[in-house]
């Protein structure tokens, strides 16, 4: 079989149903308030799958939950009740092979970035690994980018060249079908084992797909010069005034870091259950919080009033470029919609370019 096939839209749901017998399904659904979110789907018949909107969340929390218990502990006491030692019992998440479908290019790209953070170094994060292993991605290219999207500028969309198991492209109303590119082995397995759902792609299909990709590139509403901004920041000097002005408007809510698909900072705390037991918890953290770098005696190496946002933007556009050769901003535009004060990455980049 070739590297691309075609799936008629009528067969999409039946395909998911078959896959749902083997995998947990996660995809974009619309809830009763009209919000589209990536959600775990238990009941395909009642889930309102919506592939027309950008999900408000990313896939981050499926691999790296907002709060997650790492271990439980028990205090071992001596005969006189004094504390002798602590015993820790790791709480690893259960293994659940999961098929993520309807995933947008930027969101899969973000997962690949998280792989570098949690699995790339000498120590692999077992919690992340447990969730990441046996995950399949059935992505959906964006024929029509959304209002705040700029993944073309971060080179993480609107269509991907790698990373997916299967990448779907909507071939438009005339065809009522998806062009399916086969990426990794997981995708090959699906198309061969469930071959009855797919037909071979013709040259005409390939042409239509190519056309869709070309058109999508022309439909971005945001023009964001990410490369230029990275170069400016690298060359220096630091745009101190821009940072100070934006920091003044930052309201310290952490929303940008929480919504960001590639912000992976966390903190670890112990939560006591009772006198002798408790749990060690990992929660999302944000570098825009003063407490992130605060040391004993309230000393803080970062002047939070002026530099609250410097660390975040420099990390995305500078440190990661040096370290990994590309920005860790995937251009999803979510932080633009969530910020209370207009302190988003697009504004920052525009201001840096305007210098």
């Amino acid at each position, binding site marked *: 079989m070739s590297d691309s096939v075609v799936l008629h839209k009528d067969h999409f749901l039946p395909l998911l149903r078959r896959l749902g017998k083997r995998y947990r399904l996660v995809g974009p659904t619309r809830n009763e308030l009209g919000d589209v979110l990536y959600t775990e789907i238990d009941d395909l018949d009642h889930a309102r799958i919506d592939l027309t909107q950008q999900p408000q969340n990313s896939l981050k929390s499926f691999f790296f939950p907002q709060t997650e218990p790492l271990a439980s502990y028990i205090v071992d006491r001596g005969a006189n009740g004094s504390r002798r030692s602590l015993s820790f019992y790791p709480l690893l998440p259960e293994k659940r092979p999961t098929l993520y479908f309807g995933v947008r290019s930027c969101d899969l790209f973000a997962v690949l970035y998280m792989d570098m953070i949690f699995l790339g170094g000498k120590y692999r994060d077992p919690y992340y690994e447990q969730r990441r292993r046996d995950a399949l991605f059935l992505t959906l290219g964006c024929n029509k980018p959304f209002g705040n999207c700029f993944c073309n500028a971060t080179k993480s969309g609107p269509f991907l060249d790698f990373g997916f198991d299967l990448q779907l492209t909507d071939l438009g109303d005339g065809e009522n079908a998806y062009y399916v590119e086969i990426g990794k082995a997981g995708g090959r397995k699906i198309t061969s084992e469930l071959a009855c759902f797919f037909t071979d792609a013709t040259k005409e299909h390939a042409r239509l797909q190519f056309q869709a990709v070309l058109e999508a590139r022309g439909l971005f509403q945001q023009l964001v010069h990410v490369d230029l901004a990275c170069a400016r920041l690298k060359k220096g000097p630091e745009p101190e005034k821009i940072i100070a002005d934006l920091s003044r408007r930052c309201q310290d809510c952490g929303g940008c870091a929480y919504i960001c698909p590639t912000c992976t900072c966390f903190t670890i705390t112990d939560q006591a259950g009772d006198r002798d037991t408790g749990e060690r918890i990992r929660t999302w953290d944000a570098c825009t919080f003063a407490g992130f770098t605060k040391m004993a005696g309230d000393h803080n190496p970062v002047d939070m009033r002026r530099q609250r946002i410097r660390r975040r933007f420099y990390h995305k556009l500078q440190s990661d470029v040096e370290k990994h050769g590309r920005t860790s901003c995937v251009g999803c535009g979510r932080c633009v919609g969530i910020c209370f*004060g207009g302190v988003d990455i697009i504004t920052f980049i525009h201001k840096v370019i305007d210098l």
Partner: protein
Amino acid sequence: MAGLATTFGSGAMTNTINELDQSQVILVAGSNTTRTHPQVARRIYNAVDRGAKLIVIDPRKTKIARHAHIHLQINPGTDIALLNGMMRCILDENLIDDLFIEMRTENYLALRDMLLAVDLDKIEKITGVSRSTIARAARTYAHARRAAICYCLGVTQHICGTANVESYANLAMLTGHVEQEFTGVDPLRGQYNVQGACDMGALPAVLPGYQSVFDPDIRKKFARAWGCQLPENQGRTLLDMTHGARNAGLADERPDPLKVMYIMGENPMLSDPTLGRVKATLEGLDFLVVSDIFLSETAELADVVLPAACFAEKTGTVTNSERRVQYSKKAVNPPGEARPDRLIIQELATLMGYPMAYGSAAEIMEEICLLTPVYGGIYHDRLQRSWGLQWPCPDREHPGTPFLHKYSFTRGKGHFTPQHHVDVAEPVTDDYPLALITGRSYHHYHTGTMSRKSALLNREHPRPRVNMNPQDAEKLGLAEGMRVRVSSRRGSVPYILHLTDEVPPGELSSDFHFREAPTNMLTIGASDPIAHCPEYKCCAVKVEVDHV
């Protein structure tokens, strides 16, 4: 609340929060908006980005004040003097809206006569703001076609809180800045759903929907629905209840103190002024019941504690500052024996011989619609399909009301209420040379019952702080991070000292979230004669190094 009710006839935001985006001038008074109402601050930023002018009235140089085009850094408790000064300037420069005053208001001559007697030099002295700055602010506000006033507890938590609010309303009416979109007087409510609680009659003299308890027809309507007789007199105000200690040997003992109290989701043992007195009162009760989601300082004094469900564990509605009733759906089950408040009340009532058998929150809402005209069309099923409805919404077909007082004030004509400066209840003296202002910090909410349970919020703000101007610190020989003890005539509380130019010399500010530093040990019980809101925003204190 009471202030806007007397002038306009309705005590709530006259606009929608989104309208602020389009205002030309926004006057923010006594509100640390970026900390307490970030979503409102966001609209103010947007408006300023579009070219709006921002005027901030606050003794402190808050974050929003740093964004202001004009910051009127008044002495605490001098709003009325400042506003009288501004209105005098508006009058002198003939920037008043004659037509609006003529058609839509009453009692203007009384205000004009009072303003003509205002001495601007005296105003400058009382407020600490220069005449020229006052005039500039007055001109900026009066010239705009669309100008909104946002005020918060810095205006209301004074012994002249009601008069303060009436003065802001005077200013708005004098310039015709009410009754339109993007233009009005907007009280930002202090707490989650406090608007809803007021709407539902959690006030001494009104039944749900601000229907007067003194009106026999209204009482009859409720009596028919509830099958019981309603009291003809108003209830007690908060301080009447929590400061009513029996036999505590207090000089101004209140008559007829309570014997039993049932406190729901409130923590007066940290939030009410003069905590010593609150404690004496609660300990003197025959019986105290507290229902809350955690064992609060107040619950520790209770005979019975009823565990309640939190907001995410029950279905109901929340009403925000802009009068928007929003549906809030249960997300998780309550832990252990905790139950939603409505079930606790239903079962208590049933045990007391008045069976209540509401099957759901939606059924209760139907009764609210039946009995409360402003909520007449706000049914759960409508809310589930929308982002909420803004009252007044009298029937099922009504789309809700984004801004109030269009064509006519709720009370008919807007009433000018001239006001004069009132000195703060406790001016600073040589013994107590600093004025303490209380307020909220960003990372904690109220008495910390909830926010102090969060590890991340506690990391951001782990210890009780008192803010002082560096000049004062230098005079007193104090330094950043020192342990200090702040004392008033009523008590003494330990803090960590934080030096900042946010507070001007001669003033201190602190929050009240920490049980280990109960700021309300220091505050005074003196309160507004009408709303009975205590003067949290100013009391005289001194600071010493704490040698522990």
